[in-house]
């Protein structure tokens, strides 16, 4: 088993080493940081938003960034594919008629091009942005981890695993038995792979987001597109598997006839609010966590102009708070993955229950 972990480690190391040549050193004008002053808003929003390159650090005036591939389908109907560093190679930041929109444009920070009437329009943008890249990286990492555990399990039948495999097995079985099985009940096996995938997908993205160095630290689950997609998946699974009782509860609930005109719209809206709440909860929690940690770190640089005593004391405070917040975020990373999975399981359980329970209202309250 140790050799398996070692092998996995080696694979990851090879992956990282393979990435080093991609790192490019580019000397350009700093975007967010001015001499002596700091735009905290830009730093924080620049981090939690998306970008076309992976900025690692700025050393003096040299930005160390990982250029990421840009994939576009322009208005001319042709596909363009180039590295984001291409924008820096031309003096005006225009490459092949594409450029990154400036701060006062409605598409600030996105790649735009000019159409025939000289208006800024967005091409179809499938660029492998920072978030998308982190997403792919974390997905591959997740596959490697789970498949290695599965591989070990297959090879060592009826043996108790140790170390990392044992931990993962315990982790998976805990979610499987105490969340999915407990929430769905009979017939949970059908949904267990989906819910386990959701849990570990969210969890690994949350955890990787807390690691501040490349390739961690991207705000993946704090991006609305990611949570929107996950919530849509739960919405589809819940409603496609809804039994007769589930739909009856929505379109003909057991309430007095006069209340029905009120209850039915509420129930119909309820179908959509449940996944919507899932989407917003995960997005807001992770985004807020990233923002708070970044703000605390920025505190050190904001107070730099207030004299050494203030700066020193604020540094201690911000580091202590930063450590505290990181520990908290570690907890939040687990809790949010857990909550998303559990609520998805509860929704699926309610929609697939053979006999409609009257706990629907209670569950809604708890949400």
């Amino acid at each position, binding site marked *: 088993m140790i050799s398996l972990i070692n092998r996995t480690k080696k694979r990851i190391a090879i992956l990282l080493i393979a990435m080093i040549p991609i790192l490019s050193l580019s000397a350009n004008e700093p975007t967010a940081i001015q001499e002596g002053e700091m735009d905290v808003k830009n730093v924080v929003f620049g981090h939690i938003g998306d970008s076309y390159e992976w900025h690692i650090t700025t050393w003096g005036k040299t930005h160390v960034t990982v250029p990421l591939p840009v994939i576009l389908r322009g208005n001319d109907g042709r596909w363009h594919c180039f590295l984001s560093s291409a924008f820096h190679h031309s003096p005006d930041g225009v490459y092949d008629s594409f450029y990154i929109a400036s701060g006062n444009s409605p598409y600030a920070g996105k790649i735009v091009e000019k159409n025939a009437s000289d208006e800024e329009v967005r091409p179809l943008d499938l660029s492998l*942005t920072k978030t998308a890249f982190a997403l792919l990286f974390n997905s591959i990492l997740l596959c490697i981890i789970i498949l290695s555990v599965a591989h070990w399990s297959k090879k060592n039948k009826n043996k108790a695993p140790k170390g990392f495999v044992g931990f993962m097995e315990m982790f998976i079985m805990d979610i499987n038995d105490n969340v999915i099985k407990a929430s769905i009940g009979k017939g949970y096996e059908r949904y267990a792979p989906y819910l386990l995938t959701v849990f570990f997908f969210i969890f690994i993205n949350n955890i990787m987001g807390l690691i501040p160095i490349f390739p961690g630290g991207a705000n993946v689950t704090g991006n*609305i597109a990611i949570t929107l*997609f996950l919530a849509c998946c739960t919405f589809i699974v819940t409603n496609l598997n809804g039994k007769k009782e589930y739909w009856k509860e929505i379109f003909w609930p057991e309430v007095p006839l006069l209340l029905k005109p009120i209850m039915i719209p509420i129930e119909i809206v309820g179908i959509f609010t449940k996944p919507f709440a899932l989407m917003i909860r995960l997005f807001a929690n992770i985004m807020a966590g990233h923002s708070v940690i970044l703000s605390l770190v920025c505190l050190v640089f904001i107070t730099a102009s207030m004299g050494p005593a203030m700066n020193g004391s604020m540094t201690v405070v911000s580091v202590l708070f930063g450590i505290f917040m990181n520990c908290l975020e570690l907890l939040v990373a687990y809790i949010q993955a857990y909550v998303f999975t559990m609520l998805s399981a509860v929704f699926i359980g309610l929609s697939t229950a053979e006999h409609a329970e009257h706990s629907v209202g209670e569950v809604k309250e708890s949400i």
Partner: protein
Amino acid sequence: MGLLQPESGLLFWMLLSFVVVFIVLAKFGFPVITKMVNDRKQFIDKSLQAADEANAQLAGIKANSEALLAQAREDQVKILKEASETRERIIKEAKEEAQAVAKKQLDEVRLQIEAEKNAAIQEARREIASLSIGIAERIIRKNLEKGPEQMELIDRLLDEISASKS
């Protein structure tokens, strides 16, 4: 609010990566692991049950062997008892037989002695008779004519003999 606007490009990558991850893990990942864990659980349950059964069997065997041992001990005692009884009986019988034989022999010897004694008495009587007859003949021949004293003596002798005989 740019933060709340889902990017179509990111949605595309999310769709791609999540679907691929889901397919891969749902096919080769989680079911394999959960199945293995459940199989192992069953295996452990079965093993424990088998162990329990084996223990029960062992206990049964132990009880059986103890019962056998007790039986054997009982048998031993019984056999020993029987043996001692038999020994005593044999000894007793032997003694009785020996006594009977001894008695028989003694009786035979006695009878023989009796017979021999009788024979000896007969012999002696015949001897004595012949001796007496001889003595008598001589006395008679010498003193037959000597009168009544002789006759008296002969009578007396004869009386004595017959008296001792009877």
